[in-house]
């Protein structure tokens, strides 16, 4: 089975199913997760398998069901709250930022919130400006949360389990554009480490630091660069909060150069933060200014070609790196 191809969507579904099977306290709730099978069919069939008490359709009120999830978590359950797409998360942001993220602190350490919130993020398939946000930086800004980004099939399959074991709230970003993407999947015993970034490809010439949809793009770019004699290292941040400084800095110290790639717009982004940490901590190891490739600072356009142009693509990563290394 290890060698057969599997979609990103199927990985997510298997992860949820495994969680439901493994722990009675786990349940999934959100808009259309039950009878409809999820807006993106991630939970299709789970209602039939686990019943309405564990696959729970909710009213169209993000504040309501996210708050209910927090209550359930406080009450000893291990809820998985699905927010259909990231744009709707703003309606739940008061619950997330003011309750989930702060209760442990406000209760003097008495009330932890073991809640997992999943949401679809990024550009989908021409979903236009209101459904194509890359707001990871927004959540990565909030103390009290652990923020994860699912950039690979491995993480889609094996990130949920450790997230549910976390005693505090975890936000997981999944990517609409990757749902149908097929890849081979190797089993990971005991889930992935959600405290560490992951080196997806080793290289010595430059570190491509990225997350989410950037990971496969960076790997594609790295493969093309390898043909040109440039060995790029691909660092999948994977955890956007708290950032794994150790892995990032070790990689940049090794390669002396860094380019940070993300779909989010450039200003006040994850890349801003990573760039700052690199210059703060390994300035004297840098052989070139830290580079960034980010989303354009525009509402994401509807037309396909403009949508593609609004976020970094592998060709841009390749040309930016070649330019930096003077091979262009």
């Amino acid at each position, binding site marked *: 089975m290890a060698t057969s191809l599997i979609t990103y969507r199927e990985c997510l579904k298997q992860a949820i199913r495994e969680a439901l099977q493994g722990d009675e306290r786990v349940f999934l709730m959100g808009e259309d997760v039950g009878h409809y099978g999820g807006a993106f069919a991630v939970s299709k069939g789970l209602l039939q398998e686990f019943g309405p008490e564990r696959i729970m359709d909710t009213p169209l009120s993000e504040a309501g069901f996210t708050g209910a999830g927090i209550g359930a978590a406080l009450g000893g359950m291990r809820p998985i709250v699905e927010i259909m797409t990231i744009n709707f998360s703003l309606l739940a942001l008061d619950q997330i930022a003011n309750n989930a993220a702060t209760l442990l602190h406000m209760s003097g350490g008495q009330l932890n919130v073991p809640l997992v919130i999943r949401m679809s993020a990024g550009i989908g398939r021409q979903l236009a400006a209101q459904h194509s946000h890359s707001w990871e930086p927004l959540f990565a800004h909030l103390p009290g949360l652990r923020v994860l980004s699912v950039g690979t099939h491995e993480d889609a399959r094996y990130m949920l389990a450790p997230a549910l074991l976390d005693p505090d709230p975890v936000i997981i970003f999944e990517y609409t554009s990757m749902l149908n993407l097929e890849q081979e999947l190797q089993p990971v015993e005991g889930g992935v480490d959600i405290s560490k970034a992951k080196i997806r490809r080793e290289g010595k010439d430059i570190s491509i630091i990225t997350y989410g949809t950037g990971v496969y793009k960076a790997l594609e770019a790295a493969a093309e660069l390898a043909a040109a004699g440039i060995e790029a290292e691909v660092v999948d941040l994977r955890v956007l909060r708290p950032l794994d400084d150790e892995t990032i800095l070790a990689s940049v110290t090794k390669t002396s150069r860094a380019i940070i790639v993300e779909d989010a717009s450039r200003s006040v982004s994850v890349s801003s933060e990573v760039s700052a940490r690199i210059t703060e901590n390994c300035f004297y190891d*840098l052989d070139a200014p830290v580079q960034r490739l980010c989303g354009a600072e525009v509402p994401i356009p509807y037309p396909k070609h403009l949508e593609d142009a609004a976020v970094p693509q592998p060709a841009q990563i390749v040309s930016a790196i070649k330019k930096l290394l003077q091979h262009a």
Partner: protein
Amino acid sequence: MLEYRMPSLGADMESGFLREWHVKPGDKIKKGDIIAEVETQKGIIDIEVFDDGTIGELLVQVDEKVPVGTLMAMIIPPGEDGEIKETPQKSAAPATTPTAAEEAWIATEPPPMAEKAAAAEHHVRASPLAKRIAEEKGIDIATIHGTGPEGAIIREDVEHAITARVAPVPEAPKEAAPAPPPASPPAPVAAEKPAPPAQAPAAPAEEEKARQATGASAETIRMAVAAAMSKSNREIPHYYLETRIDMRRAMAWLAETNKQRPVKERLLPAVLLLKAVAKALNEVPDLNAWWENGLQRKPAINIGYVVALRTGGIMVPAIHDADNKSLDELMQTLNDLIPRARALRLRSSELADSTITVTSLGEGGVETVFGVIYPPQVALVGFGGITDQPWTENGMLDVRPVLTATLAADHRATDGSTGSRFLTAIKNYLQQPEKL
């Protein structure tokens, strides 16, 4: 007015840092006076003046980087009138206050362009990593050509510069020979006995201390050696000659002479060798020369004597007018020069004036030395150890103390027959030690 310019203290030197003025405007000076201290890759060097006169004006600030050939001072020749311009800044005091520095600028009135260029030099566009490596390796980043983004100097450029300087390390024993281990006996001279009198070469710890005090590191000295030797092997077509010398008479004479002397005044075989070289050069003056746009014979015979530093690297101080020095004077000179070379405290004339080099590796047990010429000189004499060897003379076999002498010479300047005459002359002089 006479101009005093930054002297070159060796073919490998591009610039130095002025660390101290020993004179101030109005001071009377005479040829050979030490007027300043300049820090180079080889440590802090006392800079001598070449003329008699009065210091008219000092044009370089303490702690300034001074390229070779830069006008450093104006000197009023004896009997001439000249304006003595006071430098507002006290001599020997670093320019610390902005006012002093400003006033100095006004006093020296540098053309605006030069000022601009000097300022630009301080803003070298280089990556932090490149700067760090250059600093660690003792390379002046301003001399490196940048190939990075917008012409910035990047790691690769610094590494190229390092390779260019360190590259082809000559295989000749002189350079390849590691410095003697700290426990080994003093290294200055060819043969073993008697122990060098009155000479206390700096122990490695003291040598290290000296280096820290002078700013020269083992690495910068290594770089200086590497640069000179790379240039030599790149540019000089060497030819090599070798001869074996019967040292029976010389050693017997030396033993007899030393017997009658107090320990402090005893001679080492090295002085015999140096004297023989000096006398042979009188006969073959083409080897006492520099190659600079052709052969330039040198009137004075100044023998550069290779001193191995305990922690690696070499210094080659000059023994001035070696042909006019008696054996005793040569011995005194060695006793003075070698400890100062090890302490990295040499005078500029001692670093710059050599007209030929002698290297002696005998005490390490080596028999033959094939040297690399120190440019712009045209010859290097190598002496191995004096060892008992079978020797035939008049059809009879005997055991004699034998010395192997070699000559590495610049084939642009001379040919094998010249070198052969020179080595033969050395051999002959060593057969009559009492006449040296």
